């Protein structure tokens, strides 16, 4: 069993939901990312999504676009990112998901990457622009290494597509709360519950919901419907607001605890 699968099982026994923050690797630098992973764990993260910066993040809103730009300006490379992961792995057992557009992974070479990701302590991959239609080979390589492959399901996904997504996914399924790019929203879309129900009809995997979640009330609301909740832009914005602040990690930790409803 992977760390992701163990985590969801453990949470299920405790009747708790997974709280899954997203941060961009190397935003603003890898040392900060290292500190943030540890801080997020202390602040109640159950799983962390680590985003690979990309020059053309077409599924992301402005907040995560700017995070990518900061990381790339500061000389991010996937090799350095994995090295940081292997260091932080010595200090935490938290499941870590590599969240990326396909091209940076493809350029690295997926066979080598899957192996090195596993060695450094990554537990799963989520590739935003990899449709299940194109996923046969990459998912084979990922699963061969004993890692999870997480796929997105969207409100526009048909039953037929959800069935395929369920077949390719392991660890959990990521339900996109609404049509659109990543970013904060004032209210939770009414499309969430029907989508989660439709996924459950095709899969016994845990379902985490993300996109647009930025307040404690929304985190609670999603927790009543799904097995996990992903918060990205709100946390990345908290990083952005504290750039240059020597207490950046603590501030992001405070914000994360507030979001989770514990602080």
């Amino acid at each position, binding site marked *: 069993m992977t760390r992701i699968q163990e985590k969801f099982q453990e949470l299920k026994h405790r009747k708790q939901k997974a709280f899954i923050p997203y941060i961009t690797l190397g935003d603003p630098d890898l040392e900060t990312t290292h500190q943030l992973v540890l801080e997020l764990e202390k602040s109640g993260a159950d799983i962390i999504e680590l985003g690979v910066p990309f020059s053309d993040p077409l599924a992301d809103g402005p907040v995560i676009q700017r995070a990518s730009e900061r990381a790339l300006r500061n000389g991010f490379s996937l090799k350095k990112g994995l090295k940081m992961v292997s260091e932080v792995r010595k200090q935490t057992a938290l499941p870590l998901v590599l969240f990326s557009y396909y091209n940076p992974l493809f*350029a690295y070479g997926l066979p080598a990457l899957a192996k090195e990701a596993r060695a450094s302590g990554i537990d799963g991959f989520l590739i935003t622009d990899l449709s299940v239609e194109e996923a046969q080979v990459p998912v084979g390589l990922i699963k061969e290494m004993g890692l999870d492959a997480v796929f997105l399901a969207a409100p526009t996904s048909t039953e037929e597509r959800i069935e395929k997504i369920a077949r390719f996914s392991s660890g959990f399924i990521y339900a996109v709360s609404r049509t659109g790019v990543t970013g904060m929203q004032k209210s939770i879309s009414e499309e969430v519950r029907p989508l989660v129900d439709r996924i459950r009809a095709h899969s016994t995997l845990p379902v985490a919901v993300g996109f647009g979640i930025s307040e404690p009330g929304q985190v609670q609301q999603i927790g009543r419907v799904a097995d996990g909740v992903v918060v990205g832009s709100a946390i990345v914005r908290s990083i952005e607001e504290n750039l240059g602040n020597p207490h950046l990690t603590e501030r992001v930790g405070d914000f994360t605890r507030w979001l989770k409803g514990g602080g």
Partner: protein
Amino acid sequence: MINLNLDQLPDAQGHFGPYGGKFVPETLMHPLEELEQAYLKAKNDPAFQAELDRLLREYSGRPTPLFFAQRFSEHLGGAKIYLKREDLNHTGAHKINNCLGQGLLAKRMGKKRVIAETGAGQHGVATATVCALLNLDCEIYMGEEDMRRQELNVFRMQLLGAKVHRVSSGSRTLKDAINEAIRDWVTNVRHTYYLLGSVLSSHPYPVMVRDFQSIIGREAREQVLAQEGRLPDLLLACVGGGSNSIGLFYSFLKDQNVAMVGVEAGGRGKALGEHAARFNGGKPGILQGTYSYVLQTEEGQIANTHSISAGLDYASVGPEHAYLHDLGRIRYTAVDDGQALEAFHLLSQLEGIIPALESAHAVAESMRLAPGLGRGRIIIINLSGRGDKDVQTVSQLVSGP
């Protein structure tokens, strides 16, 4: 000799050999399936084809002439050069062929709102034009840098009733305009039609745009047979995304004796970031929905590009081109900014035809190749657009900064 089985290209998932396919966020996957179904239905509907034919003829002015450029040919002292006059289309470029087709399709699909990206502004203008004609709401995404280079086209789009969104992210050119258009589409996908301007992005766009542009080659084939009694020896076209070139080449792909050269933008140097020659410095990768040749860093970050012509200034190229390149069916070469400018001047002076800077790249390649071919040989250049939009850019270059 390769045997191209055109009926099997692309496969059901939009693959041209290893290239193409669908690489978009899940939210867009079913909408792409719907688009494909709607397109296939329209393609086989005689009423749709009749309406498209009527608009191409009565609105855009097709067929465009195939013109023998006698003075230009004599000046070069080699092959006979014909120009396929796509610049004589309504709105001044080949882009309208695709916009009329997709505009009618949007209408059939019941979408009231159309969005598009534009580089040089030609596709934006053609989209805005067709939306005015068909009573569709129109919003265009354009990079800040391109808006500066093509100020007049921005005003033309506004005049036609379109809203133009300034894109200030990344390199502020075509690639960033496409990112922004996709972000809009993924948000408003249920009621918005994305009218993509080239043979790029996910299936079915590369095949659909090719089909709408292939009228160029169908006409050229008939015309050259009527005017010369035989097929040409060589076809030349510039390649940005690759729609005007595949439009001309497609009907000749099975004619093994017809050579084809796609001309990319050599920009101002060979270093990454200084040009847009994907087949001369790029490698296969995934950008904006498709797998094709991409100018990128070792790390898989997309490179900036440069060309004097905004329409060729893009980091990737249509997947069908990638496949035809690997097969060796089409040869790809690059012409730099200076050579394109020289061709721009020469064709203007010898034929009274001011070519778009994009098309001037293909004209420049003919200046290299024609002298080496015998006098009996025939070249067809796709003159994809007229140069009025570029007059200001060129005048600034001539008079110095």
